[in-house]
């Protein structure tokens, strides 16, 4: 499948339809048998500040961006200013003809620091301060500029539709840029129409308007920019069933598969979409027939209520989860420790974002690993999982409940903004292999005589009984307790009870297959090994493929179970490695620290990034290559992104 890979970026003010454009564009490509990966970037703002979507279209499955933009579809001047330097030398920029004379330093939404940077840049390059100056400069290095009279086209459309107020159609600038884009890329127009039809399925009038807009723009491009643009996009025939799905949705589906019946949440970016999606689908279709499945989604007054309500539901016997991000998780910490102490199988989906504090609420980061590991006073057993891509989000979300119930402990499922808010096409998820394992649960018929909820056992696991079960009356408390669950301050009981809880971690080490705890890519005997976790996976895997093709000897360990860390595996795998390269989206190389803590093995090289934008294949490729060429410092800091 030698389809050309296209990197398309669409940008404009938040609220002006960037998401819609990207979604329609992506669908249109997907309908043509292409794989799509799309990353959404937006400010913590509802309307007006800059947002964009960076789409990668390829014949192969992709789950990361590269640095390139082949075609930039700008709704406004700011988009051009912010992204012009990302456009490749034979790439193109679609821009509003009426805005090319914009004085770029006067764009009101620019931040102080961007304005200063821009001023310096213009000075250094000796450029004028109009958008046209910037465009002309780009033109010199081969970038094609496609000036489109957005307003004229909209007027034509309005006329055709007999709409008098132009303001009623200005929302369609986004679809115009799609039409132009596909015109330039010479893509099958009917697929775009199909995308519009499904996207606006419930609004036939909107469908018609948008199809007209796309057509108008498509034709405009064909007529005006004939043969001017070198990149083309071709559809291909495929058999496979595919879906176009975001990380948020994948987690939600995983929870449904996993049997989640109560989900609590307090709104927070980028986690809330998952809960809202679940709520919208609260009545679940099941194989058992009608009226057999429903998930209760509770919006709580805060995250403290969210975790504790979920724990309550779990004690009653429902599979229960909550979803949040950093600030919310911070508030859940006390409840987490209660769940740890009381051995509650509760699942917390933790969407990391730029931190600390409110940080970068809508931007990416992987700063919270250590926090997830150590959150909560005292020592108690927990499992921390980290998915590496959208597909893993789905499977891990389901598996989390199995771990939680089998080992009777809270499970923290780490996602991050780059996964949660990105979308990609992938083959339909196969859930046929997944089995629900609820662990050791006793029902009424199995309860005869004295029942001890926290019975001391060899493995540390005590048979569990749901609240409300006949003959199973028992107690929970956040205090240290005896086997019945009553408060106990006796030193001997304390020594045993802590051990009981903690040794379940050893059991996990023994029982959970290593394939569920790590993924290995590349050469098992490689001298150079990358270690990483979470969303850099996509970029690393691609970089690894490229570097392997170039003849480098490289392996990649993606850690998926962050706690308990598969330390024996890591010791074996890393102890004779020449170069260990830790790739993470944080300042201190947290996974690297944990590996050293648990194995003693020092990390030779760190490739780190914390600017709020995910790693790209390009960056990782280049940074790793520097290491392999012995040209890298011990610590490389990546900075790509806008």
């Amino acid at each position: 499948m030698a389809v050309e890979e296209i990197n398309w970026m669409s940008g404009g003010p938040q609220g002006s339809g960037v998401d819609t454009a990207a979604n329609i564009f992506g669908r249109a490509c997907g309908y043509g048998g292409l794989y799509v990966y799309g990353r959404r970037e937006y400010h913590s703002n509802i309307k007006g500040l800059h947002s964009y979507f960076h789409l990668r279209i390829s014949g192969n499955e992709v789950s990361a961006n590269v640095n390139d933009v082949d075609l930039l579809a700008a709704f406004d001047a700011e988009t051009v200013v912010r992204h012009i330097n990302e456009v490749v030398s034979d790439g193109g920029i679609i821009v509003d003809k009426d805005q090319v004379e914009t004085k770029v330093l006067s764009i009101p939404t620019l931040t102080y620091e961007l304005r200063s940077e821009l001023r310096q840049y213009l000075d250094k390059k000796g450029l004028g301060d109009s958008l046209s100056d910037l465009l002309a400069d780009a033109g010199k290095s081969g970038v094609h500029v496609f000036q489109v009279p957005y307003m004229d086209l909209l007027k034509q459309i309005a006329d055709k539709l007999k709409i008098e107020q132009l303001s009623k159609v200005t929302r369609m600038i986004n679809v115009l840029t799609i039409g132009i884009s596909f015109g330039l890329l010479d893509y099958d127009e009917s697929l775009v129409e199909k995308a519009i039809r499904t996207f606006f399925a419930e609004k036939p009038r909107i469908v018609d308007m948008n199809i007209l807009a796309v057509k108008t723009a498509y034709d405009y491009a064909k007529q005006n920019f004939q043969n001017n643009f070198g990149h083309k996009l071709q559809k291909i025939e495929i058999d496979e069933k595919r879906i176009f799905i975001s990380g948020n949705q994948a987690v939600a589906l995983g929870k449904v598969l996993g049997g989640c019946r109560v989900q609590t949440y307090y709104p927070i970016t980028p986690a809330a979409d998952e809960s809202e999606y679940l709520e919208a689908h609260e009545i679940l279709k099941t194989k058992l027939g009608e009226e057999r499945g429903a998930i209760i989604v509770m919006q709580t007054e805060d995250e403290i209520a969210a975790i504790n309500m979920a724990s309550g539901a779990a004690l009653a016997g429902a599979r229960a989860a909550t979803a949040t991000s950093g600030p919310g998780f911070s508030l859940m910490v006390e409840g987490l420790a209660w769940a740890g102490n009381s051995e509650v199988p509760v699942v917390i989906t933790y969407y990391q974002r730029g931190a600390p504090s409110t940080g970068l609420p809508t931007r990416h980061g992987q700063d919270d690993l250590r926090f997830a590991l150590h959150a909560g006073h005292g020592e108690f057993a927990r499992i921390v999982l980290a998915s590496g891509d959208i597909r893993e989000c789905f499977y891990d979300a389901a598996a989390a409940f199995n771990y939680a119930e089998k080992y009777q402990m809270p499970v923290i499922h780490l996602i991050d903004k780059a996964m949660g808010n990105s979308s990609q096409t992938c083959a339909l998820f196969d859930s046929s292999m997944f089995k629900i394992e609820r662990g050791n649960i006793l029902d009424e018929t199995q309860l005869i005589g004295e029942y001890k909820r926290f019975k001391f056992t060899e493995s540390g696991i005590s048979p569990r009984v749901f609240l409300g079960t006949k003959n199973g009356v028992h107690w929970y408390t956040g205090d240290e307790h005896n086997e019945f669950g009553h408060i106990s301050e006796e030193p001997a009981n304390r020594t045993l009870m802590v051990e009981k809880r903690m040794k379940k971690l050893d059991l996990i080490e023994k029982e959970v297959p290593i394939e569920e705890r790590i993924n290995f890519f590349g050469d098992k005997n490689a001298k150079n090994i990358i270690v990483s976790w979470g969303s850099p996976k996509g970029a690393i895997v691609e970089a690894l493929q490229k570097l392997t093709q170039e003849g480098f000897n490289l392996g990649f360990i993606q850690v998926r179970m962050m706690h308990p860390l598969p330390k024996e595996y890591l010791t074996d795998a890393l102890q004779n490695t020449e170069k260990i390269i830790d790739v993470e989206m944080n300042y201190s190389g947290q996974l690297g620290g944990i590996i050293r803590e648990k194995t003693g093995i020092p990390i030779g090289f760190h490739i780190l990034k914390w600017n709020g934008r995910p790693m790209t294949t390009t960056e990782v490729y280049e940074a790793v290559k520097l290491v392999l060429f012995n040209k890298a410092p011990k610590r490389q800091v990546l900075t790509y992104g806008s």
Partner: protein
Amino acid sequence: MALKMSDFKTDVFVDWCPGCGNFGILASLQMALAELGLEPHRVVLVSGIGCSGKPPHFVKTYGVHTLHGRTLPFAQGIKIANPELEVIVMGGDGDGLGIGAGHFVNAGRRNIDMTYLIHNNAVYGLTKGQASPTLRLGLRTKSLPKPNINEAVNPIALAIVSGYTFVARVYAYDTKHLKEIIKQAIQHKGLAFVDILQPCPTYNDINTKDWYAGEDRKDPKTGKPMSRLYKLEEIGYDPLVKDLSEDIAKKLVAIEKAQEWGDEIPLGIFYKNELVPTFEARISQRIPFYVANAPAKQQISDETGASVADLSEFFEELKMS
């Protein structure tokens, strides 16, 4: 076979101070459960942290002794997952109205069918007697280094404003009345709140048993103490909202009554309204089988262990073809 109070007792030593009002609350609760014939396994007692957090260990029903201030979230989670359970929440005034005030207010908005008892002793008992949110401005109970600098919150008024549909006050030593009110609170359809005036002989040396009994104000004629407590039912007070049109008026009267303190302290039901739909009723509008097939009761896997979930409709929405 009829249940007895002793069916609700555990072997755990009841470790409250001698004379603590909590003994009365515990006994009344056990009596109420027995009289209502609630089988122990159908009841879940949820408590917070404080002297008032310990009752679950003394009562032979399911017990969940949670975190300081977090009783309501835990309890609501339990009840939502299994609405068949009789969920009774108990906690301190610090627990419910200090650190837990946010949940207190927001639980009222849901009206989940549960019972919430606050042990109101005006101090933080288990941490050795600091001022609780119900201690009045300027008072200085035994272990305060300085007089209390904050105004007191009014639990009854707060509950009414927050949407609780059953709001009552009782006195810990009047176990018969207390038991009756607890029974009514449990039977109420909706979120019931009971403010229990609970003497703490160890730290609250102001609102003592003697003080409530009026030992300091003897009737000049009879020489007998004049109790500060009286019952609303005795003055013909009618707390029941029979029609939604009288709701606001009933609330206002209740709030007004709730301002009485000092020499005349009303006990009994201040407000009761069963016309507000419970959470269970609201959610059943969306999910008609919610109660019949509650979250905790749903079958989630088949014999082979496979999930019963059928994701086809989701995939249909997401499909790329």
